[in-house]
């Protein structure tokens, strides 16, 4: 009988990625429904499993780890082999991976190797009763909900027979909880080294070079978030303020036509009818009146925040959150506020 929820943790340079703890916390929440345990799988070079406190704090009951030089940098086959061996040995009910460029390479290969189903980029996980008909006793299944069709619809997927039920989840979707035991100490957990059959011949590629780099500048059309300045920002220097805000929110800068015409910013940053059409997750319209020529270029954004002094500005008709106020005062304060918030929530 397949049991327990496993999270395949992700490490880069021996630093455990945030998404792993988010998934462990989510796994803990799910495990409350079924009364199962939560385990993390950790693979890496020697020493990667030295300090596991964060795992237990996030909700893991135990960590199963493999330390091997071949696992120092991620490559497909060594990781697939190790994870598959562990899953076949442990026979879990559910396995979660972060939907990162590593997870989306590893999870499908593992799923194909151990012959089970995989659901990608889930935004919601629930354990609910399911039964094929009225007569049959319901069983608890993992309901995996994810966007499809380019994000235009949502689909809930089930893996009814094969085990484990596997899912990948994007970073930032699930909430990480930190559980502090009663006396303020780290909760306890088990630690198990797994003896994998990994050998040198399993490495079927050669890493010639590892180049670490800053995130590259994108076309505003590809930006996940945009801080956009309109005529109301008042001066070209105001864009530095918007840039600072953008950096804190991992966003890019864009503009309405007025500032482009005035030469304050490049045309390739113009959003609107005679500029570009964007649909980021976050669009912050600062000092933008919301003329139709501009709105036509951003109305498909997921979440729009607008800051404008003028209460009747048309931008408020398309803003999810509209703030009537002076951006010259609000934005510097917002920058400070976000810095404080990030400081407090650093993991």
């Amino acid at each position, binding site marked *: 009988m397949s049991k327990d929820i496993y999270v395949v943790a992700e490490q880069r340079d021996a630093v455990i990625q945030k998404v792993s703890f988010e998934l462990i916390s989510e796994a803990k929440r799910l495990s409350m429904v079924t009364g199962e345990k939560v385990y993390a799988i950790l693979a890496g070079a020697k020493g990667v499993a030295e300090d596991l406190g964060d795992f237990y704090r996030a909700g893991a009951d135990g960590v199963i780890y493999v330390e091997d030089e071949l696992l120092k940098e991620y490559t497909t086959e060594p990781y697939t082999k190790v994870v598959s061996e562990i899953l076949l040995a442990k026979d879990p009910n559910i396995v979660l991976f972060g939907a990162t460029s590593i997870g989306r390479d590893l999870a499908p290969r593992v799923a194909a190797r151990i012959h089970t189903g*995989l659901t990608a980029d889930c935004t919601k996980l629930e354990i609910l009763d399911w039964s094929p008909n009225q007569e049959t006793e319901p069983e608890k299944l993992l309901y995996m909900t994810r966007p499809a069709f380019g994000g235009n*619809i949502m689909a809930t997927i089930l893996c009814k027979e094969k085990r484990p039920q596997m899912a990948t989840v994007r970073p930032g979707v699930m909430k990480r909880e930190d559980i502090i035991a009663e006396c303020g100490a780290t909760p306890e957990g088990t630690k198990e080294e797994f003896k994998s059959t990994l050998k040198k011949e399993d490495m079927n590629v050669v890493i010639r070079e590892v180049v670490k780099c800053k995130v590259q500048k994108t076309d505003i059309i590809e930006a996940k978030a945009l801080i956009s300045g309109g005529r109301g920002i008042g001066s070209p220097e105001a864009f530095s303020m918007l840039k600072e805000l953008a950096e804190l929110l991992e966003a890019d800068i864009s503009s309405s036509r007025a500032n482009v015409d005035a030469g304050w910013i490049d045309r390739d940053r113009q959003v609107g009818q005679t500029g570009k059409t964007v649909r980021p997750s976050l669009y912050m319209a600062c000092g933008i009146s919301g003329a139709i020529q501009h709105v036509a270029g951003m109305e498909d954004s997921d979440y729009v925040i607008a800051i404008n002094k003028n209460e009747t500005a048309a931008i408020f008709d398309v803003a999810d959150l509209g703030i009537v106020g002076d951006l010259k005062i609000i934005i510097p304060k917002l920058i400070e506020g976000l810095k404080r918030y990030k400081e407090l929530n650093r993991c």
Partner: protein
Amino acid sequence: MKIVVCIKQVPDTNEVKLDPVTNTLIREGVPSIINHDDKSGIEAALKLKEQVGGEVVVVCMGPKQADVALREALAMGCDKAMLVSAREFGGSDTYATAKIIAAALRKIGYDLVITGRQAIDGDTAQVGPQIAENLGIPQVSYVEGVEVLNESTLLVQRQYEDRYHMIEVKMPCLLTALTELGEPRYMTVKGIVEAYRQEIEVMDYEMLKDDLDIATIGLKGSPTNVYKSFTKQAKGAGTKLTELSPDEAVDAIINALQERHLV
């Protein structure tokens, strides 16, 4: 070098609109295109062929209408096109799809298989790696650059969020392509005329059944299936906050950002 590019014909999901009255997707009139990542894969294959010679075969699993996508690939310069299509294949999830395509690839033969990283309708990025697993060959995904080192080895640039790897991989192998791999070339008018003079071979269940376990294909063979699908909430009129002090405004913004995991 024999390069096989796997492509998918997808609806242009950027053009899909929501019917505001029924809150359902308007699927009619949405143009079908070759998936963007796959098209960059075609471009990479054509460039490799220009460099070292060989053949580029394009394969698409889909309904009969997918022949238009294959013709477009031929018009871009691919040498041969095959359509993998059968009733028995319908309803396959990524696990089953990969099994079928792998069987087709074994029949076609290859030195290098290129797929797109992910399709814009399914968005799973699973089929490429699962094909590689079925074929038992090395995979490198998220490829943004590829170079031929010698007749058996490729040097590939593999993208991660915060870094990239330069990876040497021996053929036969599978790469999944990002759009960064190359801006796809236009078809040529001559290419289109010639594409329509070519036969597109259809690989159906009869042709592949010796290599396929029927229990692992189609709707029945898929470990996952869709329980239900529904549309997201349409964007309603938002909240407009007036009379706030700057500090209150900042709090409201940070709260909203936090709730949506935008910070």
